[in-house]
């Protein structure tokens, strides 16, 4: 890995109304890595991802991507710089077909649909189907494919396994393994075992701050810490 991080959050703060949700989050994501953001519900994991795009306004601190300060830029500008977000609730456009959802994200690039079908062959039979007629698993595959097809340098994925059957989770894990070294990924997910298999490095959040960070081996070696901050056994 390079020493220069692809993404750096430098002590960022954010609010929901009067609620101080992010209280100085700092982390670094190295190019080509798969990084997880862990923590109990409501500690600010999803807000951290949204703050990268400015969907949640960063009131203090800096979001630095490829050495450039992105703080305060419009979300579409951040996306055009090479960051993609797969939101927690997928947000597939229900009135657009699967093909249209893909092409919307891919722009005018030829071969985009074939590329998606190589990652998720299941979607082949649904290209003409509108988003509201897909199952949860199909929607999640499409949401991830829609983010990847833009060929971003960094993908932020929020709760990819929520409500999905184990077999779908396995397919998504395979797709993420396939990206290893090609695209940098930041994952927010509650499934600890799955995360330790998929991610290289982990940041643990609590009360709007990063409280611990380390590799999967380090997490396994610290079950008490996992119990304290995540409430589950490692």
């Amino acid at each position, binding site marked *: 890995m390079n020493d220069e991080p692809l993404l750096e959050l430098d002590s960022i703060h954010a609010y929901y109304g009067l609620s101080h949700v992010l209280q100085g989050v700092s982390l670094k994501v190295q190019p080509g890595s798969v990084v997880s953001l862990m923590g109990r519900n409501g500690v600010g994991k999803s807000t951290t991802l949204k703050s990268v795009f400015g969907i949640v306004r960063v009131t203090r601190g800096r979001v630095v991507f490829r050495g450039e300060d992105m703080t305060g830029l419009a979300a579409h500008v951040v996306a055009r710089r090479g960051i993609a977000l797969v939101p927690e609730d997928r947000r597939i456009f229900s009135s657009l077909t699967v093909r249209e959802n893909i092409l919307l994200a891919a*722009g005018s690039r030829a071969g985009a649909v074939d590329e998606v079908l190589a990652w998720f062959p299941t979607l082949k039979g649904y290209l003409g189907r509108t988003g509201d007629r897909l199952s949860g698993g199909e929607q999640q595959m499409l949401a991830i494919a829609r983010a990847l097809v*833009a060929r971003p340098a960094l993908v932020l994925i929020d709760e990819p396994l929520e409500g999905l059957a184990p077999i779908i989770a396995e397919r998504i894990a395979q797709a993420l393994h396939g990206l290893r070294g090609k695209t940098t990924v930041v994952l927010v997910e509650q499934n600890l075992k799955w995360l330790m298999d998929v991610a290289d490095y982990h940041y643990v959040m609590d009360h709007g701050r990063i409280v611990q960070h380390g590799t999967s081996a380090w997490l396994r070696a610290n079950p008490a810490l996992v119990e304290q901050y995540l409430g589950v056994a490692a």
Partner: protein
Amino acid sequence: MSFQSILNQFLLGLSTASIYVLVSLGLTMIFGMMNVLNFTHGVLYALGAYFGYLFATLTGNFWLALAAAPVCVGLIGIAIERTAIRPLAERSHLIQFLATYGVALVIEQAIRIVAGNDSYPVALPSAFAGSVSFASVAFPAYRVFIVAAAVLACIALGVLLTKTRVGAVIRAVSEDPEMATLLRVNTGAVSTLVFAGGSALAALGGVLAAPIFSVYPSMGEELITVAFLVVTAGGLGSVRGTILASLIIAEAGSLGLLAVGKYSDVLAISLMAAVFVVFPAGIFGGWRRA
């Protein structure tokens, strides 16, 4: 009540519906799809009629007027969107209503200052001065042309929205602007484009309506209420709903003349009320998120 009189009223209703469709399609794009409560739409229709009258008078060429007036009004629409609407994009519909209603009043007063309060009769284009016969009913050729223009506009808009990338982008922004932004779409630019297109459609309706209804400053006030009724009754964002609701209200007003005479407008509004009782979200529901 003869078959001929019923057919005649039906055809009159069809041409009126065509004007409603053109104006309401523009409002469907702006209000139904982009969720902007735009009360300048009526005055943009009037501006279209005035620009059409101006160009037709200056050049003697109706076709040039038909093409140029929507372009001019589309540009005015862009100016309105940038100055009065975009800064209020995150505000409530009440604020949007007050702002756009204020702009509409300013534009209407500007029309009165420049063109006066008089009504201007607009000559029919010579190519459509005659009549066309339908089952022994002689029907003005110009009204047939209006129906054809509306059908063409519907087909063009339908193709644009469902078969092109621009249409997919517009539908995506309409449904979930934040997600569209995350996919690198400049939603502000899309809003401007849609507002310009919607304004141009209103103007097209105004140019086409001018030879039938004449041109006068308050002509937009009368149409804006109908247009909002049509757009909401059809289902926000639904092109086919807009077409169907336009047909219902126009035909109720036209055919209703035969049945209930001067109360036909009451019949038309009552039918719209019935539509809302049966379909609270409009006939075709619409796709925009609440």
